[in-house]
């Protein structure tokens, strides 16, 4: 009879405090006194803030219905947003003409989304269509009055549509003007340099709100009576001027980061000014400052809300005009949450695009 057991005894299960939920908690939540405290603080925040917020926004919220009487859940009254959604998207645009705005939205999405997809063919052509073709098509579609579609005055534009028009025109126009200004500021020709410096410093030295205010309140007084520029056009010109000055400085930062050797190499190849800039300097400089450029774009997108001080009803102003409607009870929070969400979607999209662009273009600069 052998007292030696040759078979290996089965492994004991690990202590309960090391595996499973408890083990995970011990390792990740309560591994030190500091973590213990942080976990408690986190749990406290979840219970006092996030759960009530979720409860307000989703569980106790009302989503369907027609008017105030549908909001009985005690949470958010999303019925209000649903009811006023057309106003938030199209402003005062006539119902029958919504399709025109929709076409512009669809075109924008159709041209923009391929830019996110690495392998998409003809991206360059789509890009040009986006930057040049879309504004032209949108102009004729939104204003109307030609090709047999009715004219819609810009006073009727509003909501997300107006915000997109303002920011898209601002972005598309500010980048090329900014590039020209940045090059001009580094030019050897004193007159050009002087003009560019003067322009940049003038526009960068005043707040956007005062630019808009001047454009809407002072400018009409200097014009002869009866001669009126469209208010939206005045605001757009103000925004483009202002943002191109900022853009110029961002791009100048990129130009200064290019080593002198690159300029000399371009000269040595016998390239003229425009060719050396277009083929050698700018591609490198712009790539370097993508984060700065996108930063300016995002700031521009959010700055467009300032037009509410000159009575243009962009998304934020149309939310503000709707939440005071006495037909609804206190829906201020719902309105502002909605506006913030819309802004977040667009700004987050821009941010992701810039990161994708950086990854694609990185050629050794990335650390």
């Amino acid at each position, binding site marked *: 009879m052998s007292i030696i057991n040759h078979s290996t005894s089965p492994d004991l299960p690990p202590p309960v405090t090391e595996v499973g939920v408890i083990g995970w908690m011990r390792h990740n939540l309560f591994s030190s006194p500091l973590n213990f405290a942080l976990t408690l603080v986190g749990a406290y925040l979840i219970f006092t803030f996030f759960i009530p917020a979720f409860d307000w926004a989703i569980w106790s919220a009302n989503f369907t219905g027609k008017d105030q009487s549908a909001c009985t859940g005690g949470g958010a009254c999303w019925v209000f947003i649903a*009811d*006023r959604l*057309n*106003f938030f998207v*199209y*402003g*005062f645009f006539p*119902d029958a003409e919504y399709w025109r705005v929709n076409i512009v939205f669809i075109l924008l999405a159709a041209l923009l989304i391929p830019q996110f997809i690495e392998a998409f063919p003809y991206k360059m052509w789509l890009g040009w269509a986006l930057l040049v073709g879309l504004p032209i098509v949108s102009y004729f579609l939104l204003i109307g009055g030609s090709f047999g579609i009715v004219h819609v*005055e810009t*006073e009727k534009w509003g909501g997300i549509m107006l915000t997109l028009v303002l920011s898209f025109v601002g972005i598309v126009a500010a980048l090329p003007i900014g590039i020209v200004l940045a090059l001009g500021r580094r030019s050897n020709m004193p007159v050009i340099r002087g003009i560019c410096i003067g322009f940049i410093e003038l526009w960068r030295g005043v707040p956007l709100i005062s630019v808009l*205010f001047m454009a*809407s*309140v*002072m400018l*009409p*007084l200097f*014009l002869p*009576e*009866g001669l*009126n520029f469209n*208010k939206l056009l005045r605001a757009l010109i103000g925004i483009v001027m202002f943002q191109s000055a900022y853009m110029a400085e961002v791009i100048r930062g990129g130009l200064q980061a290019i080593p002198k050797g690159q300029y000399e190499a371009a000269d040595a190849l016998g390239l003229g000014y425009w060719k050396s800039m277009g083929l050698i300097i700018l591609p490198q400089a712009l790539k370097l400052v993508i984060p700065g450029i996108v930063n300016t774009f995002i700031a521009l997108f959010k700055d467009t809300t300032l037009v*509410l*001080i*000159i*009575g*243009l*009803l962009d998304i934020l*102003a*149309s939310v*503000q*005009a*709707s*939440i*005071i*409607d*006495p*037909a609804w*009870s*206190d829906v*201020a929070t719902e309105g502002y949450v909605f506006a913030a969400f819309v802004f977040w979607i667009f700004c987050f999209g821009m941010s992701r695009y810039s990161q994708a662009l950086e990854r694609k273009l990185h050629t050794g600069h990335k650390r």
Partner: protein
Amino acid sequence: MKSKMLGVLVAAGTAVAFAATASAATLDDVKKKGHVQCGVNTGVPGFALPDSKNQWTGLDVDVCRAVAAAVLGDAGKVKYTPLTAKERFTALQSGEIDILSRNTTWTHTRDTSLGLNFAGVNYYDGQGFLVNKSLGVKSAKELDGASVCIQAGTTTELNLADYFKQNGMKYKAVVFDTSDQTRQGFEANRCDMLTSDASQLYALRTKMKNPNGAIVLPEIISKEPLGPVVRQGDDQWFNIVRWSMNAWINAEELGITSGNADKMKGSKNPNVKRLLGTSGDLGQKLGLDNAWAYRIVKQVGNYSESFERNVGMSSPLKIARGVNALWNKGGIMYAPPIR
């Protein structure tokens, strides 16, 4: 009212040159354009607010609709320009709009130095107080030492200071940026009372979780006659706007409504006949046709109908007529006769 002092100064300074220049005939211009360009508030409940069908509605909006009905025959032929307090006078001076109907208080300075004319009053407003019912206060005079929620940068701030000084009382101002924030501060008990124009107090009260927990005190501490404004120097247009409003108000006095306007055309009452254009040539004297006032009543309704629909008992604001009742019904709304 919401007069931002800066806006007034800017407008006053630059308007002097414009005051002298008589503007071209707005009536011809409007007829050529085919619409009345109307400057309205960017959003004030009861006076100018986009409704659920994205159409501007309100008592101020109805003034423009009445003028469009009189001049162009269709109350719908109005285009609206939402304006902030600062840019409203410039927009009118520069010819961007034909009528400014944007709850603008008629004051001496504005009437005399901006190159503008006030064509009448469509709502007599005044600054009032909203307090919690639980305070048990019956009069503003009992509010010594109270904290007051107030919107920044408005004349209400100045009126409040004047009122408390006059009565030898102290107060603590709790200042907010927008009127909606003022209401939220009041609801969160940041202050004992809230002050604003009385019409706005009612609008703010409807937004409260417990509207019946707050009362509007009887004291009105300022005069805010609100009315439409036109450019100085175009008397014909001024007359049209003024008499469109008078017809609107007289129609109530004569009992003509949008419902019975057609029937009233057969009325024997000479006042009704003159108003509806079945006798006389009063419309032609304005440069319009004789059915001008008939169209106002038919398409917009009389003053009472507009009032009740926008701010009165059939609206969420539920403001009583008060001083805005007709002169023969205890109010001060009085229109010169159409004859």
